[in-house]
């Protein structure tokens, strides 16, 4: 992937890149705003910087310390979760929270305050960050921890990389006895079925998530498969922990952009129908390696290319318990009605464990993730409608997956926005930030820097 794309490959922007190599180096001096960019797995424009410069962090990939007794790992911010898993799983530790791909950096996991299948038990990634160093464009370096510069800690977790560069971080891992997950799959007939299975699963399962058949309508609306699991109990301990990372690999690859006609209403319908009925309506249990359990899509390298060169739009929202049933119903109905329904739709409960991050996305309720092939205006309008439904339900949309939310929505979703804005590094900005703050709002420095500031024209050019 060229770094001018995000994972959704929409939007596309013109920007420069600079690779970072050493954590002790000063930030490069460049014209225009900078933005740290790890492995580019954010879907929309929060990892893009039109007209500016991306500071590529994958070169900051050194481990600093790992204590196998306590499970505390310290590493540079460009280290990927994949690297951490290879290091820690053979020694009996696992990520405290992991998103659906292991190809994200630690810095990115903090900046987006990512969540995983255990949100109802463990909260977000930011809760497990013990401390990190924040390098600002004025050359200052701050140690940030819950009890040291707590305001910088709170602003930077979920801060979308705007408060400065995280050079290294220290994370508390979670102990495991073996690398296997006892997974149970429970079909549910509709949205009420999901709510029921979800409620009864959470007490006994660390990991839960559901796939939803986005094409089912009427009484079957919201039908799908509920996955729940725990790391396998100790009778499986004799299975070889030391070789546990061996299945990390990318067996399949999407070698090129698939032409648009491969994904159509028929193929998506067929996939959804077969996927649901594969389960034959019965619950089932199986022992699986953590890799396919947590990272099913990582086994297909470059899976985002199935959407072709026009890319796709992700949409992920959370709606509070009070309005969840009606809101989810409306979101699913609207997305099924739109031109091309979502291929992979995921539903999950968020618990009530608070994040230290001011701009953190997860909050109590239900979260729904959908993806739509980019068919231009029509798709954008659909996603904008979903954004509006979410706002009316008192929910929030996830910036890491967004390409369309309105400035009004952003302000409604993130009430601490103004407090956060004071902590943004004057040299840092992103396409996302400029889109959801179209007025000169928290970027006083841009005026101050005269010619080097981003010309307003580029803001308009950004669709």
């Amino acid at each position, binding site marked *: 992937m060229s770094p001018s794309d995000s994972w959704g490959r929409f939007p596309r922007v013109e920007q420069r890149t600079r*690779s970072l190599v*050493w*954590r*002790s180096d000063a930030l490069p001096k460049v014209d225009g705003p900078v933005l740290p960019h790890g492995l580019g797995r954010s879907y929309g424009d929060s990892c893009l910087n039109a007209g500016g410069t991306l500071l590529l962090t994958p070169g900051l990939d*050194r*481990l*600093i310390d790992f204590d196998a007794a306590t499970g505390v790992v310290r*590493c540079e911010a460009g280290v990927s979760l994949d690297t951490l898993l290879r290091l820690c799983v053979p020694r009996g530790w696992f990520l405290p929270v992991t998103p659906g791909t292991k190809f994200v950096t630690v810095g990115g996991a903090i900046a987006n305050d990512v969540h995983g299948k255990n949100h109802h038990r463990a909260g977000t990634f930011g809760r497990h960050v013990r401390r990190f160093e924040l390098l600002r464009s004025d050359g200052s370096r701050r140690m940030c921890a819950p009890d040291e510069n707590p305001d910088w800690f709170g602003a930077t977790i979920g801060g979308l990389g705007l408060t400065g560069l995280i050079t290294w971080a220290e994370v508390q891992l979670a102990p495991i006895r073996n690398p296997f997950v006892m997974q149970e799959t429970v079909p549910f007939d509709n949205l009420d079925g999901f709510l029921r299975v979800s409620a009864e699963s959470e007490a006994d399962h660390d990991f839960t998530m559901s796939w939803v058949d986005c094409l089912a309508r009427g009484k079957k609306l919201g039908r799908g498969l509920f996955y729940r699991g725990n790391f396998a109990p100790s009778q499986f301990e004799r299975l070889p922990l030391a070789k546990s990372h061996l299945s990390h690999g990318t067996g399949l690859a999407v070698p090129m952009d698939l032409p648009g006609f491969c994904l159509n209403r028929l193929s998506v319908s067929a996939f959804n129908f077969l996927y649901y009925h594969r389960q034959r309506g019965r619950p089932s249990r199986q022992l699986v390696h953590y890799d396919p359990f947590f990272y099913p899509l990582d086994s297909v390298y470059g899976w985002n290319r199935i959407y072709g060169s026009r890319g796709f739009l992700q949409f992920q929202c959370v709606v509070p318990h009070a309005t969840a049933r009606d809101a989810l119903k409306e979101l699913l109905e609207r997305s099924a009605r739109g031109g091309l329904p979502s291929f992979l739709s995921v539903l999950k409960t968020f618990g009530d464990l608070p994040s230290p991050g001011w701009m953190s996305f997860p909050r109590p309720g239900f979260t729904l993730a959908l993806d739509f092939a980019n068919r231009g205006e029509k798709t954008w309008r659909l996603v904008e409608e979903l954004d509006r439904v979410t706002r009316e339900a008192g929910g929030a949309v996830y910036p890491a997956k967004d390409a369309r939310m309105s400035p009004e929505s952003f302000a409604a979703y993130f009430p601490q926005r103004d407090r956060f804005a004071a902590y943004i590094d004057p040299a840092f900005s992103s396409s996302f930030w400029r889109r959801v703050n179209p007025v000169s709002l928290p970027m006083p420095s841009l005026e101050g820097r005269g010619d080097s500031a981003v010309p307003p024209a580029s803001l308009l050019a950004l669709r």
Partner: protein
Amino acid sequence: MKKVIILGATSAIAQATVRLLAARGASLYLVGRNAENLEAVARDAATRGAPKVEFRALDLNDCDAHASLVERAWQALGGLDGAVLAHGVLGDQDASQRSWAAAEVVLRTNFLSAASLLTELANRFEAQKAGTLVVISSVAGDRGRQSNYVYGASKGALTVFLQGLRNRLAKSGVAVVTVKPGFVDTPMTAHVPKNKLFATPEQVAKGLLRAADGRKNEVYVPGFWALIMLIIRSIPEPVFKRMKL
């Protein structure tokens, strides 16, 4: 290679090699110019499984310091059975043409300092009748071209030096491995536009260790450079001198 000195340890290829050696459980002695960066590489290696990692910040152009450097490394690791010479500068051909001072730096770093270190290491390895010397040369040393003949000459001289050393040490059981990478995507080439011919430092490190394990003589990494350089070496000089290379 279980006790290895790495010279130029903060270079991208060296760092990738250090990681592979650390994962194999080798003890390492790292040498580079910047102490802070060296420490970052050393901690990374230790965290990835190297049982012992020491480092020393030193400008390798100071050839007078080489004997004591090797002695220290020898003491620190309780002997050495491997050395990876990865330090070098690309230089700027234009600057090197205009000023001898610029050219001299390239020749000193890439050839003279390497030859001095190799003399020290070779004598010790010859005496113990064991060891592997792995040296990063370059495809640029295979034929002089107007676009980088100063760098090419420094690497070409190194390649010839290694041929002689290999010939001398063959009877002592010491392997001398010349590694010739092509284009590699590293900070050394950050200013150069990248194309399909560029390899990653990780690919080169893998090729380097494969060659060391197999006690190879001269290897190109990636392998296709052997063919490219065969063609380039085969062009008759009367034709070659008129080409834009």
